[in-house]
């Protein structure tokens, strides 16, 4: 007689329930440091100095933000100029990177040409190198070309640094799109360019959004490269200027906190509102 293997009809699986400890941990760990900076930025210097500290701003004031955004003087001027710089540099670097990565990813995913494999792995191979290993040669190249202290120099360096990952994410995305539609379009007489523009791009929009966000956030977070590539305020991004202020002891911590909050507003807003695209993009980029 064969043993009868049968599933019990009433199997009690552990009900998937939220784990309160983990949830409390994630919220505390991620948000308390940011809350604290916000809290300090809404206080006066005297309030910041009390012991124990105020866990809530006793009389919330926007004077630190006002001082930075509209006030006169050296420090606010530098903050405002470097805020413009970081937006221009990250915006331009993102556009350049995403456009080139889209073209390259399409070529690698769909076209056959000599040396394709070598090129593709050459581009990807650069991702394995720590970024800082290229710092010195890049600096010397940029100073040879006279591009130190220019937007162009920083945008070129960012684009070269972020292209491999962007290409990789988009390549994976495009390779997963169904080939049949493109073939049908080709049969109907569409050119490569038309196929890319009319069919592949609209389908690849989610992948392009992910790549755009990840590239922009990476550019916004840069510090050492712009520190080396820009020695004056003409091209220094906000990250470099804030760090320089932090080293100067006459800049009060409440003001510095307000500057910090200003510097994280843009990436925080992007991360919170578009996190779905970040998650899918990061996972597509990390499966090596």
């Amino acid at each position, binding site marked *: 007689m064969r043993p009868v293997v049968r599933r019990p009809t009433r199997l009690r*699986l552990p009900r*998937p*329930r939220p784990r309160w400890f983990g949830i409390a941990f994630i919220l505390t760990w991620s948000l308390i440091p940011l809350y604290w900076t916000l809290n300090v930025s809404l206080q006066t210097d005297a309030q910041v100095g009390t012991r*124990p500290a105020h866990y809530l701003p006793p009389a919330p004031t926007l004077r630190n933000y006002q001082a930075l955004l509209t006030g006169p003087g050296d420090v606010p001027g530098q903050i405002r100029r470097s805020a413009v710089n970081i937006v221009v540099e990250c915006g331009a670097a993102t556009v350049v990177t995403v456009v080139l990565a889209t*073209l390259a990813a399409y070529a690698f995913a769909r*076209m056959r*040409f000599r040396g394709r494999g070598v090129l593709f792995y050459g581009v990807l191979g650069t991702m*394995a190198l720590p970024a*800082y290993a290229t710092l010195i*040669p890049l600096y010397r190249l940029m100073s040879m070309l006279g591009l130190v202290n220019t937007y162009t120099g920083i945008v070129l360096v960012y684009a070269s640094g972020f292209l491999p990952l962007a290409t990789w994410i988009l390549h994976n995305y495009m390779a997963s799109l169904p080939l049949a539609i493109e073939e049908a379009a080709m049969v109907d007489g569409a050119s490569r360019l038309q196929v890319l523009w009319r069919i592949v791009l609209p389908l690849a929009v989610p992948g392009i959004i992910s790549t755009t966000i990840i590239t922009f956030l990476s550019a916004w977070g840069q510090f050492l490269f712009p520190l080396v590539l820009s020695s004056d305020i003409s091209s220094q991004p906000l990250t470099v200027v804030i760090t320089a202020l932090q080293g100067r002891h006459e800049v009060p911590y409440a003001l510095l906190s307000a500057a910090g909050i200003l510097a994280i507003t843009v990436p925080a807003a992007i991360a919170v509102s578009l996190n779905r695209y970040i998650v899918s993009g990061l996972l597509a980029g990390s499966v090596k």
Partner: protein
Amino acid sequence: MFILGLAIVPAVYTLAQSFFRVQELDPPTRFNGLDNFRALLTNPNVQGSALNTVAYVVIGVTLSTVLGIVMALTLQHRFRGRPVLIAAMILPWALPGVVEGIVWSGIWDANTGLFNSALTSFHLIDHYQVFLGGNRFLTILLIEIVQVWQLTPLSALLVLAALQNIPGDLYEAAQLDGCSAWRTLTRVTLPLVRPGIAVAMVQSLIATLNVFDQPYVLNGAAETGASVTMQTYFISFQNLDFGQGYALSLLITVVTLLASFVVVKVVYRQVEF
């Protein structure tokens, strides 16, 4: 024309990259033979920072992996508010490292910091302490916590992605065999997410071996927390000794590649369901 353009863009890019690699071996390094390396290895600042970096790597990889697994397990099943929690979790990943340094300097600060204030409020310490720059190990631990704050979200996502590939029947089977929750975790869940853990460990390994922003902001050039990447910066751009800078970057690159390879060999196992 267009195909040509498509082929040329990455080609030029790759060429440019290989040009940089060639530059790493250009005259200052080559004609000195091994002098640069000898000078580096006998430089007490470099030795000290190498030791610091080892501590950063050990603390950082361990903490971010463990915390990443905890976060991923928390998010494994769907529940109300899970998307909000994921948004909160990702936040530290998206912020600039130096600004995170400034955010956390408000916590570790000796005069106004939250940590001092909270410990005093709970009567754990009598008066405010200096945490950064005093005790070397404590300094490194507190700085690395800041970097772990930035690295853990990606680790958690990588482990979470692997978790969601585990078929539900395996849990049913474990349940039928009478496995406790802990045994299910250590015998079923963790072995099956090894590939995800390996990738998470490699990303935090590369980041911690090259840590720069957090110690630079929180502790300046002080020997108690300087990392090897910071030495590269000081040697190249303050002492203007590019030859030694190249040599040190080359060493860091080699160590990074070797260490990544070892992690993948040890942790990565192809799993089939």
